[in-house]
C-alpha cells in the first residue's frame, strides 16, 4: 500500500505515491475508497465502469477524477477496489481514461468509515520525486 492518511483539524489528507503519475493517481483513488469504506479494497470485481475526463490542468484532472468516486458512491451505491488508468495526458488538453472495478456497497461487509463530502484544492499537490510521483489531497469530511 502506498497511500496514507494524514490528520487535519476538521478533515483528512490522503497522501499517495507511485512510480508513474498513473500509479500515483490510482493509489490516491484507492486511498479515497478505503477512507470511505474500511474494507473497500477487498471488494469483489463484479461491476466495471469506464470513465473519461478532460480538465484544464493537472490538479483539476485529479479533482474531477476523484469526484467520480463520490458520484458512484451516492448515486449508484458502488465502491471500487481496483483502479486502472488506461491513459493519462499530463499536458493540455489534460485527459484521463480509467477503468474502475468493484461492487455494490454493503455496509456489513465494507464497513463505512468516513462520509467524504467533497474533494478540495486545499494544499493539493502533485509532485515529481526521486522515485516517481507524490500526490497530496485534502478531502472534506
Amino acid at each position, binding site marked *: 500500500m502506498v497511500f496514507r*492518511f494524514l*490528520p*487535519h*483539524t*476538521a478533515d*483528512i489528507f490522503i497522501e499517495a505515491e507511485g512510480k508513474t503519475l498513473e500509479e500515483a493517481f490510482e493509489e490516491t483513488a484507492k486511498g479515497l475508497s478505503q477512507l*470511505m469504506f474500511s474494507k473497500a479494497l477487498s471488494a469483489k470485481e463484479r461491476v466495471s465502469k469506464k470513465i473519461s475526463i478532460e480538465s*484544464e490542468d493537472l490538479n*483539476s484532472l485529479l*479533482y*474531477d477524477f476523484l*469526484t467520480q468516486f*463520490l*458520484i458512484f*458512491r*451516492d*448515486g*449508484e*451505491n458502488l465502491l471500487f477496489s481496483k483502479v486502472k488508468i488506461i491513459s493519462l495526458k499530463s499536458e493540455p488538453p489534460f485527459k484521463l481514461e480509467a477503468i474502475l472495478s468493484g461492487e455494490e*456497497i454493503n*455496509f456489513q461487509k465494507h*464497513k*463505512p*468509515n*468516513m*462520509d467524504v*463530502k*467533497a*474533494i*478540495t*484544492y*486545499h494544499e493539493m499537490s502533485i509532485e515529481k520525486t526521486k522515485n516517481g510521483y507524490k500526490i497530496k489531497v*485534502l478531502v*472534506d*469530511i
Partner: protein
Amino acid sequence: METINKISNVLWELPQGGDMKVPGIIVASENLLEKMKQDRTLKQLKNVATLPGIQKKALVMPDGHEGYGFPIGGVAALDAKEGGISPGGIGFDINCGVRAILTNFKEDELKPYLKQLVNVIFKNVPAGVGSKGKTKVDQNNLDDVLNLGVKWAIENDFGWEKDLKNIEEQGAFKGADASKVSAEAKKRGMPQIGSLGSGNHFLEIQKVEEIYDEKVAKVFGINELNQVIVMIHSGSRGLGHQVCSDYIRTFEKSFKDIVAKLPDRELIYAPAGTQECEDYLAAMKAAANYAWTNRHMMMHWVRNSFEEVFKRSAEDLGMNLIYDVAHNIAKEESYKIDGKLRKVYVHRKGATRAFGLDNPELPIHYQKTGQPIIIPGSMGTASYLLVGSKTAEEVTFSSTAHGAGRAMSRSEALKQYTYSSVNKEMESKGIIARSVTKGGLVEEAPGAYKDIDEVVKTSHEAGIGQLVVKLKPLAVIKG
C-alpha cells in the same frame, strides 16, 4: 506576527494591508482569538478581505477556524452589482443547518420512556455514512423538492402548514431552479433525501437547563426549566456537496483570469451579473431547499416516533417547530452602508443569520423578539438558543456563531478516546448515545471541540446574539 488591534474584549481588528480592500474584524474572546492564531483562520480572513465589492469588513465569528477559501465562521457582504458570489464562502454542505422543536414534556415525564423513544427514532430516521432515505423520490419529485422546498414536503404530508413560517425563507427559497443543478448532483442527492448523514450531524433530545431571558423564551414556546426540546442538525447531503464542487469547477473554467490573481484557488467567485453567478445562485437556492426539506422529513419522523411511543398526536404533544436556521448559505440582503441602502450577497460560512427586532423577513411573533438563533454544541455538551439583535446589523451584517467548532482532528480524537471511554463519559452525564458506527461516536468526542459556552458568551457580550436558553442533552443519535 501581524498586528491585531483590540477594539473591545470581544472585538479585534486585523488592519487593512496588502491587497485587502477592507479590514478584518474578529469577534472573539482573547482565548478564542489565541486558538484562531494557531491555524490559518486569520490568513484566510485576510484573503476574504481581497474579494471584489466587499463592504466595510471581512468577519470571523467566535467559533471560527481554518476552512477552504473562507475560514469556517467567515462572513462577508459582497456588493450585488460590483461584487459576486463565492461558493467557497458558503461551503460544500450548502444549508447545513439546524432546527429546534418544542414538546410539552418535562424531563421527569419523559425519562421512563427515553430509551424506548430513542430506539424508535433510531429506527425511523435513517442515519450514518451514505445513509439512504426511506422515502424514495424519483427525478420529478426531486425537481419539485429543489424548486419548492418544504412546500413539497407539506403537500406530501410531511409536517404541518404552520411549520413554514418558522423556517428561514419559509423553507422555499425564491429563485431556486432545479434545472441549474447538475445530473451528477441529483444522482447523489436522490437516494439520500430524508437522511441524517454522519460527521457532526446529529439528532438530540434535550432539556431546558437554564433560562436567561424569560420573556423571549416564552415567545419561543419555552415556559419552564426541564422542558424537553428536540434538535436536528443536518444538511444537503451529497446533492449540496456536488453543487458546490460543480460550480467551483465551472467558475474556474469561465474565469481563468480571476483564478490567476486569487490568493487561494478556493476563493474563486463569479462576478455579479454574469450568467454563471445567476446559475450558481439558483442552484445554491435549490440545494438549500433540499436541506430544509431533508430536515423537515426527519422532523416528521421524530413527531411520528413520539406518537408511536406515547399514543398521542404530535399536535397534542405540543411539537411545534421553534425555528430552522441555515449555517452555510449566501443571502441577498440590504444594509445601510455609508448612508446608502445597498443590496449585498451576505456569505455566511459556518455562521448564523441573527436578524433583530422588527425585521420584516421574520414571522410576526418573532418580529417582537428578534430571530431565534440555534447554536448546537458538540455531542454531549450544551446547546443554546439565542436571539438576534439590531446590533448585529451594524457589527456583523446580522450574523453570529454557528456551533462549537472542531479543535482536534478526527484521527487525534480516535487516538485519545475509545468507544467505551466516550460511552462512559456520556453515561456519567446521564446521556443515552446511539450511533450507527463506533467511530462515528468517538470522532465526535466532546473533548475534540472548542468550548461552546465561551462561544455563546462571546456572541452575547458582542451583542450580536443574546442568550435566551441553555439546553442539555438527554439523548444523542449520530451517524
